[in-house]
């Protein structure tokens, strides 16, 4: 594999390791965090806090770089418009997240831990993504 392909592979592996170490591949922990009015489990806040802290430093470093280390240029989101699509779509995502205690990262990471069940979740997720694509085309 070339160097360009190695960066995402190493990044994905670190990401999956972090999810598992932080307990985020355990839906009971994730749903425990969302159970704010019940037996609240704050663990997810520590995971999010640790990740955001490191990334905040990375963004400061990024601003001083002309280009990424292993690619020609940065390709980063630059939109700032708040739309119904953004808010409503995210709300819909949150309902799914709450039902099973899985979001996309832990869904894929769980393929190695609970392959059968995780494959169901991932397949349904991809089907949902395909549906959006079919309804509105490529945007």
């Amino acid at each position: 594999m070339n160097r360009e392909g190695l960066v995402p592979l190493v990044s994905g592996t670190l990401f999956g390791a972090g999810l598992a170490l932080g307990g985020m591949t355990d839906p009971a922990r994730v749903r425990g965090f969302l159970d704010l009015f019940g037996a609240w489990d704050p663990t997810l806040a520590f995971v999010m806090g640790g990740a955001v802290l490191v990334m905040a430093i990375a963004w400061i470093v990024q601003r001083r770089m002309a280009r990424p280390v292993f690619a020609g240029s940065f390709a980063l989101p630059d939109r700032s418009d708040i739309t119904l699509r953004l808010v409503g779509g995210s709300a819909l995502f949150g309902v799914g997240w709450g039902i099973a205690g899985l979001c996309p990262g832990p869904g894929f990471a769980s393929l190695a831990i609970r392959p059968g069940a995780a494959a169901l979740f991932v397949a349904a997720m991809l089907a949902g993504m395909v549906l959006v694509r079919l309804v509105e085309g490529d945007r």
Partner: protein
Amino acid sequence: MILPGFPDAAPLAGLAGGVLIGLAAALMLLGAGRIAGVSGIAARSFGIASSSLPRGQAFAFLVGLPLGAVIVAGLTGAAAPALAGAVPLLVAGFLVGIGTRLGSGCTSGHGVCGMSRLSQRSLVATASFMASGIATVAAMNALGLEVLP
């Protein structure tokens, strides 16, 4: 370490896992110049959405996710966590797929990468999916709907 008032929480493991996730996203940003947003990378990888990230690289990131999880599971010897049953998994997955496409991201892209950049869109998106996730769990508890064993 035990957090006062929350005996079941794992704050240190959570923080360590979070730092690893942050390093992963930082590597993607500073190395490849991209956002480590799993839903977008998944859509790109399966040809559902176009993006400037080469498809092979998107797939390589996705392959790493279970690889990293299984390495940690092997090292810690932790038991495999229980997932929900088939019906809730299918319903949840479908909603997550639709919602993350419409909302342009998930917990990683908006929650980790966007919030750390103070992106207005990501702050709003994260508030939205946190609120609906909390409401969903509260509603399911009120109705006595149990999905995990």
